[in-house]
């Protein structure tokens, strides 16, 4: 029987990493040094890295900053898989949040919300979702906002919701669509917002969403 946990999101890269890592035996005795971490990251040994504890995070951040884009992509995937908060990781990753390197950009956008709940992470992803020139990056920034802001408190989500609701009024149809999708994944509802509806109809629904946000804030 399929049993599913409370929180769910599919991510093939993460699954691959986890499955890979689960078939390998952990070696908790390994020291947290750059070479060990580098080897584990390269081999996708997430379970082993987890066994080493959170001390691996600053080491991984240093490694990230010293690596080429291919390695950075792998390290960003690993940060994502670990899902641990880390100021060092966030500081390293956010430098690449505008990189034109496609693979690296996607992994960085996905990983940021899993290493940090800082407001600037949400801000930069909202900005990418609305203003990046590449529709793929916009779309994947919305995915990150929808599913990967795992450390946000209910209070911190106010900024996320406000940004997504504001993006419902974006002139670009794809932005309205992905903003709505992100909001729907976050809240489970659309309140009848149709991104392709005429402006007055959309505005009416945006007002409804804004009222909802006010009520949300009043319950905090």
């Amino acid at each position, binding site marked *: 029987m399929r049993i599913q*946990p*409370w929180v769910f999101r599919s991510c093939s890269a993460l699954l691959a990493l*986890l499955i890979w890592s689960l078939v390998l035996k952990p070696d908790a005795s390994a020291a947290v040094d750059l070479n060990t971490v580098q080897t584990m990251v390269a081999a996708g040994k997430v379970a082993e890295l987890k066994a080493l504890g959170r001390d691996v995070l600053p080491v991984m951040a240093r490694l990230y900053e010293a690596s080429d884009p291919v390695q950075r992509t792998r390290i960003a995937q690993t940060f994502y898989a670990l899902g641990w908060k880390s100021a060092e990781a966030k500081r390293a990753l956010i430098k690449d949040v505008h990189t034109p390197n496609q693979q690296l950009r996607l992994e960085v956008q996905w990983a940021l919300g899993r290493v940090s709940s800082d407001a600037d992470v949400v801000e930069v992803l909202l900005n990418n979702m609305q203003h990046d020139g590449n529709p793929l990056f916009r779309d994947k920034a919305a995915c990150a906002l929808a599913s990967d802001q*795992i450390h946000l408190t209910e209070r911190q989500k106010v900024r996320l919701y406000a940004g997504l609701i504001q993006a419902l009024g974006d002139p670009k149809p794809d932005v309205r669509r992905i903003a709505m999708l992100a909001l729907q994944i976050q809240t*489970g*509802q659309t309140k009848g917002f149709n991104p392709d509806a005429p402006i007055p109809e959309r505005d009416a629904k945006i007002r409804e969403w804004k009222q909802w946000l006010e009520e949300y804030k009043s*319950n905090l």
Partner: protein
Amino acid sequence: MARRIQIQLIALFCFLATAASGQTNSSNILVSYSFDDAQLATGPDTFAVFARSRGTVRLNGANRLSGYRSVEIRDMAGDGDFPELQGYFAPRSKGKLFLHFGFMTATPYEEFNIALAGPQWFNLRKDGIGFWLKTREGHLCQVSDSMPKKLFLVEPFVWYVVNGIYDIDQGSYDLVIHKEGIQKPVVSLARQANASNQPGSVVDKFSFIGDTNEDKSNVTYYVDDVMVGIDESIVHLPFVAPGRKKLFIDYWNEAQRTRRSQPGPIEAVGLADFGIRQKQMEALKAAGLWELLLRLINGQAGLSDVPQDPSSDIQRLLQAVGLWGEGAKALRDQKAADALKRFDEAAARVPSAKIYAMNAVLSLAALQQWDAVDQRLSAIYADWQDDLRLPPAMATIGLARQRLDEAEQWLRGPAEQIPDEIGQDLLRRLRSGAMTPELLQQLKLRFPDNWDDYLKDVFVAEQYFLVLLWKHQIVDAERFAQRMADRYEALGIPNSRWYERMGDAAFLLGNFTMALERYEKGLKEHEQSPGILVKLSDVYFRMGDLENERLYREKIYGTIGSE
């Protein structure tokens, strides 16, 4: 994400769930768990228990809303996962569902979550979460229209009973929550939008967990009397509050009704009965043998199903459970010699499992081998002293023994002439209930010719008292206990156990003031005795003193927590 994906089914050991009380039509009940009495096999149509990492889901006899047990859900922050009790019922896509359950938390500022969900599992979406309660900063909140809304500040160690009418078609619900001891509901809300404000959202499961995301919760909370159905009477079930429908004494009464004349096997109430603790649970999980253990416990597998390849410790553990199952069946079938053999073999494999040895004693009682009964009982007595199951077991042994009038002889005869202090001290310890294998050894050395007579005196007296109670000769039982207490006092022997027994008799007679006085006297020499604490809590409950009822309940929690 590991919390999301690395699901490990490590605990399915549960006992059920008899039907709830009230006037509900059983055909309209989709789910009904009170966690008492008979066995329940877990599975896709009933419920599953996930005790992931260091978190646990287990039966608890000390804190319960009704009956003898509730389920305790205990989460551990930073362990990478969360414990969960998850139940299933046939999907409902229209109409109304009626929901009833009780919860109590020891730690209101630690997060827990309770939800009703559908085929899209525990996500905020259509056919996902429909009804969701959670704690946040000490408050109980409902998640309605995709936002948590504060309901009230939760008090620790207080039972709350939730009644909900969930309208699937409308995507809304009515919610009434009662707090124990208060007539008026603390929450009474109508037409609340469901969790994600989705009309027609299918539901087919419920869940009780710790926290969902951050793994920061150290919650310990209790759940009891879970009912889901399509009959409105479910939400009109009487809140037995302030409290519990059954008290410690009810276990005794029920045992009286069900126990046969021949000694039968004592029932298991937890994994510790089998010597299974966290370490063994993890080893069983790691070896992929957890489900086999559950099937062995539930009688769905036998000794022959135990594989030969696991590490020897685990193999011994599983074999012992298999032997226990065979032994229990043999004892029920009045094949006491076969039963004894099985229980002894089980005990030899896992000496730390207390249930095998007790069942061996009951087998010996059925075989009328009284010297062996007394010797073995003395070796395990300390493990069972505060166990709810001991008094009915002792009464059963007493009934089988028959010649209990010997108990009166000891009272009538002159006090023993024990010249030396060591001998007197040994007898004092024996009679005060401080029975251990070491004491037994010392007794044998000091009294090589008649040590077993002293042992028999002690057991016969206790069994005599319990048989009198069993036969409803409560006044006689009380008088006997009083005389025993007086005699002990005269001999300088701690007599708190006899005061506890006098308290039991007074309780059965309905004299709660007297029961209270005697239990409190009994507690003087056993301040942390969970057995007396639970009885004191029950007496205060019966007297309507909820403050003290709760005080003693909290003390019991303290003793559990410090284990």
